[in-house]
């Protein structure tokens, strides 16, 4: 009964380093999302995918890339991390349908020094 699993849970990077955040869902959902949560800003959509092999930009895509090579996985990459990317990152998935109820992972706390 895993749902949405994010790896890693915590990470500290130095400015300029790269990393990949992994999101895996076992609910056979079509849609997957990456959000960032910052104090006073709510959840902001970075990128999303409406199916295997597809990706699209959200509200704050700059500095991030994504890939969805398999339906169950959605990867978020930071090629050259900046302090402004210090945040809590959440992955979510949802089934295709009338009600867009998204199911979230527990989050990844990222600090960029």
């Amino acid at each position, binding site marked *: 009964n895993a749902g*949405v699993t994010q790896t890693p849970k915590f990470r500290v990077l130095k400015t300029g380093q790269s990393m990949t955040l992994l999101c895996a869902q076992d609910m056979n959902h079509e849609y997957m999302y990456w959000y960032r949560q910052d104090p006073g800003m*709510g959840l902001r959509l970075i990128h999303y995918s409406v199916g295997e092999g597809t990706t699209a930009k959200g509200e704050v895509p700059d500095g991030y890339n994504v890939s969805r090579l398999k339906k169950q996985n959605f990867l978020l990459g930071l090629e050259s991390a900046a302090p402004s990317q210090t945040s809590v990152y*959440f992955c979510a998935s949802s089934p295709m349908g009338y009600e*867009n*109820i998204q199911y979230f992972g527990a989050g990844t706390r990222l600090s960029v020094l």
Partner: protein
Amino acid sequence: DQQVKQNSPSLSVQEGRISILNCDYTNSMFDYFLWYKKYPAEGPTFLISISSIKDKNEDGRFTVFLNKSAKHLSLHIVPSQPGDSAVYFCAASMDFGNEKLTFGTGTRLTIIP
């Protein structure tokens, strides 16, 4: 431009009383609304939703009211319990079935025993 606004960052309510969380939106194209609940170090979890064809939806202790003319929705929790202490996000989407959600900034609810 914040299209979904939660103007109260925090709210404290005594156990057993009613908690009322408010949310305003500016985009008249939004037609489906959701509330999410978030505990510390966990991802948001879906709580209740309402479509624009209704003005009220109830689920146990939770009721969501929608006033389309005022572009306002509210979440009522009655009676409030200590386990309700969390951050609550409202979210909205356009075109019932659209895959993207726009989130508010959240309200931290504290239930006082």
